């Protein structure tokens, strides 16, 4: 009997209902600036979870905390059943073998071509025959539609292609979690559509859990099972994309509908406009305006 990939995916989720990522009471500051002040967030296994929020709310920082690249000031992060704070370097690296991450700019290794970039984690972690590595790499590149670009250099790729290669590389070791950091930024509509479809397709076909950080509301809402909106260091709202779209909160409505002004003001805090324009301070230089 052959299982349909989606049926297999549902079965795995039903049999293993545990959250793949759990964040409890997370506090993190950069210098004197608090980024997270008691963030609680649970990401379900097998789902595509969107993490959204205005620019500067710490979405990428959150990903780095989930992957153990940053250490929280307070609070706990559990990934696939393991508390990150209890892991030493070897344990953390072992856990990361089950996590694939797509960076905003692709982060392809510039001294390696496309094929070698995708083969990189395989060569580093497993002693596989060259023929098997070739099969795996070409399979992964085929999945993202770039088998024909296998021997191109990273500098020859467009932004969308680079991100697809990075996705193929992230999938190379068949991870349990795929993390996407702003995957849609700076892409043309066709490339964006391709990446959006790949996010959903990879999640279902490989029975993995996906975490997508983005502020492209329309795109991410079309593929996410659940969304979290982060603001002022905490989760401001969570739920399905539909629930967030119809949420009564002013902040959520402003973000989901792209309104220029609202709880997140259009103007950065500044002194009164008229008094600043006509004051003598303007003659003395910008320092006195503050």
């Amino acid at each position, binding site marked *: 009997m052959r299982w349909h990939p989606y049926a297999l995916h549902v079965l795995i989720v039903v049999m293993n209902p545990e959250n793949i990522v759990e964040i409890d009471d997370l506090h993190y500051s950069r210098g004197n600036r608090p980024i997270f002040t008691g963030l609680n967030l649970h990401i379900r296994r097998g789902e595509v979870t969107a993490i959204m929020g205005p620019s500067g709310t710490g979405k990428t920082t959150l990903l780095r905390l989930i992957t153990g690249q940053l250490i929280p000031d307070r609070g706990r992060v559990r990934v696939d059943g393991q508390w990150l704070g209890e892991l030493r370097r070897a344990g953390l690296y072992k856990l990361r073998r089950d996590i694939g*991450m797509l960076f905003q700019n692709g982060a392809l*290794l*510039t001294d390696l071509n496309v094929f070698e970039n995708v083969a*990189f984690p395989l060569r580093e972690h497993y002693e596989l025959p060259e023929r098997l590595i070739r099969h795996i790499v070409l399979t992964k590149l085929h999945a993202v539609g770039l088998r024909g670009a296998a021997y191109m250099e990273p500098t020859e790729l467009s932004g969308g292609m680079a991100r697809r290669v990075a996705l193929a*590389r992230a999938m190379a070791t068949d991870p349990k979690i795929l993390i996407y950091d702003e995957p849609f930024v700076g892409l043309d509509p066709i490339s964006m559509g391709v990446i959006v479809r790949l996010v959903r397709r990879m999640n279902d076909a490989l029975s993995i859990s996906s975490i997508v950080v983005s502020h492209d509301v329309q795109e991410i809402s079309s593929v996410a099972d659940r969304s979290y909106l982060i603001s002022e260091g905490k989760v401001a709202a969570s739920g399905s994309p539909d629930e967030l779209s119809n949420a009564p909160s002013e902040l959520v409505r402003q973000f989901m509908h792209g309104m220029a002004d609202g709880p997140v003001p259009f103007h950065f805090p500044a002194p009164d406009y008229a008094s600043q324009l006509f004051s003598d301070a303007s003659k003395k230089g910008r320092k006195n305006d503050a």
Partner: protein
Amino acid sequence: MRDLFDALGGFLRTFGALQLFFMRLLAESPRVLMRPGLVSRQVFNTGALSLVLIMVCGFFVGAVIGLQAYSNLARFGAEDQVGPFSALSLMKELGPVITALLFAGRAGTALASEIGLMRATDQLSAMEMMAVDPVIRVAVPRFLGGVISMPLLTAIFTCIGMLGAYVVGVPLMGLDGGAFWSELQQGVGKVDVYEGIIKGVVFGIAASLIAVWEGYNAVPTAEGVGRATTRTVVITAVVILIFDFMITAIAISQG
């Protein structure tokens, strides 16, 4: 006064972190040496690609030394000492020091900017996320590449320099070729050669460590990478001259 203490504290913190980084590079070196492909590529990048620069500079430095030696020694009728004078100058001082300074300018800046750009474009973070330690995969091979290639470049610089001194002394100034080489052979001992080799190795470790450290800890911006590159050259030059004095003083005190 408080600024002074802050600066001193910052320096000590950085110096301590640099020592820990150095210990880590040394500790991971045996594992990286088991993958000779990684190291040989860096020996090529830092060594082979610096070869033309080293040879050209070595020839002209040797030629200038030969010229100076001839014009000054001739006043005392000691022209036949041009060979040993040039050889000792090149072997013990100018060879290691100028090679290290050229190495810092050519290979050191390339290392620092390459690693710094890898940091700025998230390539190092991507490695960490693929459970690949960037210290082992990026920093150690480049450090070892520099450590291996610097003494070799020093030796080549010195040999080419002697050739430059010979060209000035013998065909141009009319010294006897046989006397040039025989005086050189008599005037230079094993200890002088060892001093040059020790300086080449120590300068290689220092220059490579500084380049890799600056690149690895570069602020991940265009300005940060540029600053790391500049700091690599400046700090390496100062450290090399300080180490040169220390090794020379030790060598002289040992007789």
